[in-house]
């Protein structure tokens, strides 16, 4: 099994979720995060003082998938979340040693 961590732009969340649902990804866990990278925040003015917000709001998806779905999932995320503008985010893939469904105690791919 693989565990995918994807950081995307917040407004792409619904689209990505639907696309993943389309290829059979059953679930995911979503977190609001702040991203820091090449994309620079706007220079803002607050009460006459300039400041730049280089922490930008992003959304992080965590998705456990069976090995054979992993490649397709990454591709789907990449294509759906891309706006071809800087700051679109990253996808990281990890090996997942084990997975358990709390409700039933099932483990392995059936737990996903």
């Amino acid at each position, binding site marked *: 099994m693989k565990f995918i961590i994807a950081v995307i732009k917040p407004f792409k969340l619904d689209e990505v979720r639907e696309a993943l649902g389309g290829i059979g990804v059953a679930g995911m866990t979503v977190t609001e995060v702040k991203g820091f990278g090449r994309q620079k925040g706007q220079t*803002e003015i607050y009460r006459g003082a300039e400041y730049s917000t280089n922490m930008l709001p992003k959304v992080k998806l965590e998705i456990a998938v069976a090995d054979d779905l992993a490649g397709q999932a990454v591709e789907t995320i990449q294509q759906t979340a891309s706006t071809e503008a800087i700051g679109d985010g990253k996808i990281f893939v990890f090996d997942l040693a084990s997975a358990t469904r709390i409700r039933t105690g099932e483990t392995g791919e059936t737990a996903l």
Partner: protein
Amino acid sequence: MKRSLHRIAPLALAGLVLAEPALAQEAAPAAAEAVGGGTAYIFNTLLFLIGGFLVMWMAAGFAMLEAGLVRSKNVSVQCLKNIGLYAIAGLMFWVIGYSIAYPGFEGGYFGIANFPYAMQGVGEADTGTGYSVASDWFFQMVFCATTASIVSGTVAERVKLVPFFVFVTILTGFIYPVIVSWEWGAGWLDAMGFSDFAGSTLVHSTGGWAALMGALIIGPRLGRYAKDGKMAVFPGSSIPLATLGTFILWLGWFGFNGASQLAMGTVGDVSDVSKIFVNTNMAACAGVVVAIIFTQLRYGKADTTMALNGALAGLVAITAEPLTPNVGMAIIIGGIGGALPVIFVPILDKLKIDDVVGAIPVHLMAGIWGTLAVPLTNTEVPFVAQITGVAATGIFVSIVSALVWFALKATIGLRPSEAEEMAGLDLGETGIEAYPEFTRTT
């Protein structure tokens, strides 16, 4: 019912302390009830001042209601729009608005008199009118601001600051004053017998029509109505602020309706103000209860935001005539008002008219209802005059508002870029996040 100086003329200071100023009363009062002219002048003025500050406070009510019902990414802009529109209304109503609203004609359509409006000098009293003209002006000005507040709620979250403020400038300097001149300014509607005590039509429907045109021409918020017919729900960011806003408005309405009696220098007038307080309060109570019961029965849950809208719709409905109904009738009028948002909010959504705070059902529809209901309790008012007033207001305000909105769209543009709208207007338009420290789900 006129609201111009003429309206008060009979109350002007008589030449005698013990003169009888209360012509409205049937029987001549005993000498014991007489109120001296100077004293009546002070009472009348005081009524305008108290009413005025209460209605001014409604600006805060709209600000909080709207800040609570928009998404957090647009809250700072909404706050700015609300304080800005009040300021613009104040300036415009002085520069030109009041002069159009009270042109001194009888039965006319449009006029302008002495602008910008001059107040009295220091220490001078306007004994010819029976109250301080500055107090009257102040009371009239805050009504003008109310009209603009109505618009900002409907078109929230998607119209840029500058075109919005330009629209407000024209609304408060021209559109609203013209409508006022037709009735309170002794124009043609007044001549027909049209009656709108505190402005269900003049204020609330006027704001409502302008808002409706805005909603149609600006279009709905991005992503609100999907092509497949599905509708996205954008819940308001803070229900307690929306609740606070509603309570503020309710409080302010005692000034709005009560001081629209325009006089409290006689025992009869102050008694009528009291009756108006009661009726205003009870109509709002009924609106709340009806909205709660309706949503509870229809959806199995009582919708807090509908209860708030219900209170306001009840208030708008009673505004056209808060004096002649007995308490039972006030409850009925307000209760029917309270049902209107529950019924019309979903219908507007079906029509893809995106009204962020429900201002169209609350101010426009309940305003029409209240205006048409006047003859039920005030038999002197011809129903046809009410219909005419509602229609004429609708036609004039809609056409002029639409022209302005279109002109703005064609020139400086009404909406921010999609990306800016998606990111929230706060970032692009004011640069100030409303709640910068709280983690938000997007």
